[in-house]
Each structure stands twice: as C-alpha cells, then as structure tokens.
C-alpha cells in the first residue's frame, strides 16, 4: 500500500523559510520566523525549546493545520502550501500528529474502537464502522493495546493507554510522517519509557519519519537523529544529535544542556545560569533574540539579523561569537 520508495536524496519533508505570524492587539507576533529544515525518510528531527519558542506552531504549520504566513513546505518535493484543499485532504492521510494530552485529543464519547476507526471512515476506506474491525484490532495490536479495551471509553483508561489509542488512530491511515508534539510529557516516567520505545519500534517496523517536539533535551537526545534548538521563533542551532551534544556552540544550547538536572551524580555538568526570562515575540527587533539573556552578549549581537553559519558539516549555528570558544566567568 505504501508508495514505491522515492528518490532517497530528496528529503521526505522540508521547510524553507517557514514563517507564521499572528495578529495581536500589541502587534505582529512572530511565532515562527524563518525556520528551515529537511527530514529524510525514516529519520527523526527533534525540535527542542522552551514555552513560547514556536515549536508547536512549527508542527502545526508543517501539517497546514495553521497555514504558514510565508515560506514553503515540500512533501516529497511538492510544495503543499499551494495545493488546493481537496488535494490537501488526500495528503493529510500521510501526515499525522500526536498531541501532548491524550485526554483532550480523544473524544470522550467515542469508544477506543470508534476513535481508531474514525479516520478510516472519514477518508472513505470503509463505509461503515463495523467493517473496519479487522483493521482496528490489527492497529490495537501494533500499539500494544489488549482487545479487552476495544469497547471502553477514554476516561476508563490510564494516560499511557490513552496515548496508545491516539497513536493507533494516527497510524490508521498508514502515514509516512508524524508530528509528535510532546507525546510523553503528560505521562509518568515509567510509562514515558514504554511510549518512547513503542514509537521507536513503530519507526523501525514501518519506516516512519518523525518531527519530535519537546522541551526535554534528554528525551530528544535519546530519540532523534538530528536536533533543532529553537528560541523565540528561530532555530538558533541545528546538528546531528551526537555533534550537538559533543560540541554545542550556541550559548542558548549550552545553557539548556546545563540546566537539565541529570541523575548521573558523578557527571561534570557545565553550569550556565541564564538571567531573566524569554522575551516577547511581538514585533521583535533585528539581531540575536537571545542576546538579552546571554552571558556572552556583545554590542555586535544586536542591530542586524544573524544568518546561520555552518560550523561543521550539517551543524549550523546562528551566533555572532560561536568561533570564540567562550567560557562563562
């Protein structure tokens, strides 16, 4: 049922200069401001950042749930921002999303069966819900749900099982690309690990491609092939996972890594305590948006926008001082 493997040199999905602005009484809110990345088939791009950095908006814009203000989204080389609605609907089967809160993303009046069968009915694969039984049970098995819960309602299930239902529903239409927006943040750690392993197994079994959005750098390190670090609507650094942790270059990335409490009590962690809090993304001034909180900020960091530079192959950083090997005093 899957398309013939396409040219592997073309990324499965690519964002070019993606922008999403919102009108607010205070001015234009630059939620996403010129974000570019490409994800190859079977890979995972982790998008990491704190509240308000625009990571969720990137995910939604990418699926055209909130059409971007500017920029292109190429799915297998086709710009989907220009597709007519009808073609877009057909394509949506291939582009799915898993949200953070498995309580609010399931209809409380639909049983597990109905929730998983729903997309199959909407896309006309089955005309009646009853006919989807074989497929629904297969999907439940794929995500590790016992048949016993097929007729239960979301409130009867714990958070982990609810998230499994959401994943089964996302898989129903055999998608190629899934945006996972904080899929484990609402879950307890022992359940988190179960769901992360499930997502990993599914990726290996059916070759899924993920955009994995999270605030948790440890989860993203564990899960992603590449990582993009966002701050106030922009990607400040992106690199293959190993390179980002071996050699973090942007002061924000370094601060983020240093802020994560590790359970390894013998690890030597760099300690960079940031001053202040994230600024407003409304009508931002040109220049580095992190400069106000940056311990290394210099006059040349502000006034003009900084293009990302390639520090090593595949490792890009948007910082005026990345070459200087700065250490906090």
């Amino acid at each position, binding site marked *: 049922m899957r398309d013939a493997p396409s040219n592997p040199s073309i990324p499965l999905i690519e964002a070019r200069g993606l922008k999403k602005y919102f009108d607010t009484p205070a001015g234009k809110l630059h939620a996403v401001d010129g974000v570019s990345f490409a994800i190859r088939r079977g890979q995972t791009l982790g998008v990491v950042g704190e509240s308000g950095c625009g990571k969720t908006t990137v995910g939604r814009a990418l699926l055209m749930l909130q059409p971007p203000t500017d920029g292109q989204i190429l799915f297998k080389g086709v710009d989907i921002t220009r597709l007519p609605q009808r073609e877009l609907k057909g394509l949506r089967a291939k582009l799915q999303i898993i949200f953070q809160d498995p309580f609010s993303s399931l209809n409380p009046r639909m049983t597990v069966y109905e929730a998983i069968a729903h997309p199959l009915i909407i896309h006309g694969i089955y005309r009646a819900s009853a006919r989807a039984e074989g497929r629904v049970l297969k999907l439940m098995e794929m995500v590790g749900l016992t048949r016993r819960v097929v007729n239960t309602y979301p409130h009867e299930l714990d958070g982990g099982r609810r998230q499994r239902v959401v994943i089964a529903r996302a898989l129903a239409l055999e998608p190629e690309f899934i945006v996972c927006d904080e899929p484990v943040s609402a879950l307890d*750690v022992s359940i988190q690990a179960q769901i992360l392993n499930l997502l990993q197994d599914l990726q290996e079994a059916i070759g899924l491609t993920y955009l994995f959005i999270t605030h948790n750098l440890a989860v993203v390190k564990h899960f992603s092939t590449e990582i993009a670090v966002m701050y106030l609507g922009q990607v400040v650094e992106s690199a293959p996972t190993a390179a980002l942790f071996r050699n973090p270059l942007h002061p924000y990335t370094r601060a983020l890594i240093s802020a994560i409490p590790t359970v390894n009590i013998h690890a030597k962690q760099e300690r960079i305590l940031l001053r202040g809090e994230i600024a407003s993304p409304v009508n931002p001034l040109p220049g580095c948006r992190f400069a106000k909180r940056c311990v290394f900020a210099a006059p040349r960091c502000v006034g003009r926008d900084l293009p990302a530079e390639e520090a090593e192959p595949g490792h890009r950083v948007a910082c005026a001082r990345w070459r200087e090997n700065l250490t906090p005093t």
Partner: protein
Amino acid sequence: MPGSTDTLLDARDLIISYDTDNGVARAVNGVSFTLRRGETLGLVGETGAGKTTTALAIMGLLPEETGRVEGGSVLFEGEDLLTLPREPMRRKRGQDISMVFQDPMTALNPVMNVGEQIAEALRSHQSISVSAANARAGDMLEMVGIPRGRAVEYPHQFSGGMKQRVVIAIALVCRPKLLIADEPTTALDVTIQAQVLELIARLKTEIDTSMLLITHDLGVVARTCQRVAIMYSGRVIEMGTIEQVFDDPLHPYTHGLFGSIPDITRETRRLTPIDGLMPDPFSLPEGCAFAARCRHALPGCCKPQSEVDLGGGHMAACWRAADIKARRAGGGL
C-alpha cells in the same frame, strides 16, 4: 536517627485513606521517614504514589470530608501534628511549617497585589504594624530576585517563574523551620527551573530551614537533596543518601525508574521501562505492591514486606534487597 535531637520531622507508619464513591482508596500505607535539621530530603514517586497526601497530612490540610488518617504519627520537634487541635495547628502552619505548591497560577490570590499577599502571611502570625509588614514584604521580594517596586503589581503581571518566586517569598517570610515544596518547578521551563532551584537552595541556607522536596524528577533530587525517599503505592520503598540510592539502587522499582529515564549524560539506545501499572489503590495486594511488575519476584513476595536496613541508613522494603546487593557486588546483576 529517629528520636535524636537533630531530628526535626519524624513520620512513622502513616496510614491515610480517602472515602470516595467507589470505595476506600488507600493512598498512604505505612509511610515512615525522618528529616534532620538543615537537611533537604527528596520525596520521589510517580502519580498516585502518595507524595502529596503525605505532605497534606503533615500540613493538616487533608480534605476534611473525605481524607482520613487511620494510623501513625508525625512528630515535629517531638510533638505529634496529627493530634494537634485546629487552632494550634493553624498557628504552626505558615509560621513553623509552610508549603510551596506546584502551580503558582492557582496558589496566588488574583485580586490582591503580591506585596499585600506576602505581608498578609506575616501579619497573620506575628503582631507587626502594616508599614513594618510591608517593608518586610519588600525585603522578601528582593530576596527572591524581584525589585521591591513590583510589590504593588498583581499576579497576572508576573511570568510563571516570577509567580513561583512570589509564592516562595510568602512561604519563607515567617522564616519557617520546615519548608515543604510540592513539585515547585514542575510547571516551569527548564532554564527557569534552574534559576528557581538555585534560589530555593540559597534561601534555605540563608533562612536556615529544612526542606521536604516532593518531585517526580530524580534529576532535580540529585541537584538539591542530601537524602531521598522513593515512594510507591503509598509506601517509602527505598531511602538513603543520594550516593547510596543513585549509585546502588536496591529496590527493583527504584532500579526500574532509573532505567526508564533518558539521561543527557549517557548514551542509551533503548530504555528499559517497567511493564504494567501501579496497583489500584482500591484493591491493593497483601504483599509487595510492586511484585506484579517485578523481574525478581518470587512466591515470598506475596507476604507483607518490612524494611530491610542495608547499612549506613540505606533501607529498602524488599526482602530480596540484601541478596540483590550481594549479587550486584559480585557482578551477578
């Protein structure tokens, strides 16, 4: 050691249940721990482990209609808080023992400026003039890193991290002997969390208070606590110093928790989650509550488990813990 003079808080065999429409939920089933003066003890567990219920019992804030202490004692400076009448308990709360809750958005009064809220905490416990209380409120704001000029502002004018600083200022204004912090940074972003943890650690020393830090995050515990108690299904199943528990976790649940956490300093290809779920508090098993999920479970696990002392104050509620320790030391695990 329990009973010694440097013990500030001594909870023993605490049993608490809630009456619900579905029956009796056994939330806390024999919790015991001690907190020494000046110490920070981490109380760790997943949702439903009984951490918050334990804290509410210490504070005398269990819901009156449904919550019921069925047994045990909580000695604070030798005095049992659970038998204290309402009025003396009210005086203690906020003065000697105070609490910081997880969500700073709901812990503050939205129609009162933050300066008044800090001053109110002071004035309800000490006879102090309005102007002196306001001055102290300003000092307190500066102590938590907020300019005193912002005392006239309302909670909605502050960010989440700043609101939590205000909550901390309220909790510490009377210089309590014990601070209970219930997931104080869980609602905050990680760089703000780092700031607030640093602040709490600094103030704890300045004010010379002891702290019970409730969290689900073992990394936060590693950063802030000297000792840790791991809770599961309403019991402390392992307790010891940070080094004892983090370097050599002996209860299979603790071990499982560490295997479930992706850590930034390590390379893990695959996590090793704990299968299954925590038992239903409406129908707890007679024996070890973790046995159904435990890789080491044997028939002997269906008997009630007592606490095993493994030396140096490291204790685990698992009859196989000594065996596991020996086998691990011998490279067998």
